[in-house]
């Protein structure tokens, strides 16, 4: 099951919602994530209903068209609980293009090309760090924004440290080979 589907199940754990409110609840909790498209919400709900994880829980009409509310079933709750009980493998946060480029810059490109690439890459990373820091230190920032910014900052910071370590390693290696 996709993470998006599991997140929808989790949002329904608090009580029945219709598709529109589900989308709003999702986007509020993951404000820096990729917004869910309405089509994706309805498509996912219909698959979850087919598989018995959610069920229809009546219709509401607030001056507009009828809206079907969906509720979590016992099977849905069990699925959600088993997902939460499953420990994630500590997967590396791999931005494969970044790895590929840094390795190419250090091992294949000439020094000037490597310097230019690394300088610009660092600049891009630090500029993003600064933007995220401004965002999260804004007194009006919502907790969801702060938490999402923390996550991104930690990963960008890790990228920078990794780039530095890799560079130091390659420099050492070069020194050994040429001494």
């Amino acid at each position, binding site marked *: 099951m996709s993470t998006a589907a599991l997140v929808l199940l989790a949002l329904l754990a608090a009580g029945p919602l219709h598709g529109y409110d589900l989308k709003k609840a999702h986007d509020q909790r993951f404000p820096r994530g990729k917004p869910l498209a309405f089509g994706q919400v309805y498509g996912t709900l219909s698959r979850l209903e087919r598989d018995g994880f959610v069920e229809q829980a009546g219709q509401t009409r607030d001056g507009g068209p009828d809206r079907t509310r969906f509720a979590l079933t016992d099977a849905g709750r069990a699925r959600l609980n088993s997902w939460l009980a499953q420990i994630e493998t500590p997967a590396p946060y791999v931005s494969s293009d970044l790895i590929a480029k840094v390795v190419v810059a250090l091992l294949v490109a000439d020094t000037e090309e490597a310097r230019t690439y690394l300088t610009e890459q660092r600049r891009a990373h630090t500029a993003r*760090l600064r933007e995220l820091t401004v965002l999260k230190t804004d007194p009006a920032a919502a907790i969801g924004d702060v938490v999402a910014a923390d996550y991104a900052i930690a990963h960008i910071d890790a990228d920078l440290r990794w780039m530095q370590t890799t*560079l130091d390693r390659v420099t050492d290696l070069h020194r050994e080979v040429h001494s």
Partner: protein
Amino acid sequence: MTLLQARGVVKSYGPTPALRGVTVEVAAGEILAVTGPSGCGKSTLLHCLAGILVPDAGEVLYRDERLDAWSEAKRSRLRRTDFGVLFQFGQLVPELSAAENVALPLLLGGRARKEARTAALTWLERLGVADVADARPGEMSGGQQQRCAAARALVTEPRVLFADEPTGALDALSGEQLLGQLVRVAREQETTVVLVTHEARVAAYADREVILRDGEPDPSGFGVPAQMGGRA
């Protein structure tokens, strides 16, 4: 407007060079991060800019005056009136309460006791530690101590705050709270800040960063050496 600058500053400790000709300008109201790995000379640069150390060669200018040419007494006076300094460890006086620690620079400057205490309480409040005003450093967390030290560095309303690894001894969240408050207050007061750190995420609180490596500015930020792997 440039408030503070180093021009070709050279400084050695015995035979060991720490700065090999560093030029840096700090604009009034700017928050500048000086970053780089351990031993790159960033703390030495801060000490030269703050007039604590005198360079072996080169110039340090504060408001267009040659700070490095001043007597120790004159530089010391300037540090009391215009500069505030915050180090990695707060260096609070253990026998004094937080409020007394913060009031200390004002009392040394000749301010009346009551007035100094009122100002100290205001600054503790601004840094979010008013609740520990009567506690001694030993009774406070590391984060609270460091925020008191920040209040003490700012109580004289300096034009420039020099902060040397101010979050180095703090856990991530305490460090972040300190930085958040420090930066907010500095912007409100239009205080210029020179922030020395080896951490990119701390430097991200600044408007701009200068990266040093082996005592020299390193624009690449990674110290890409002249000789490296590949075809070079």
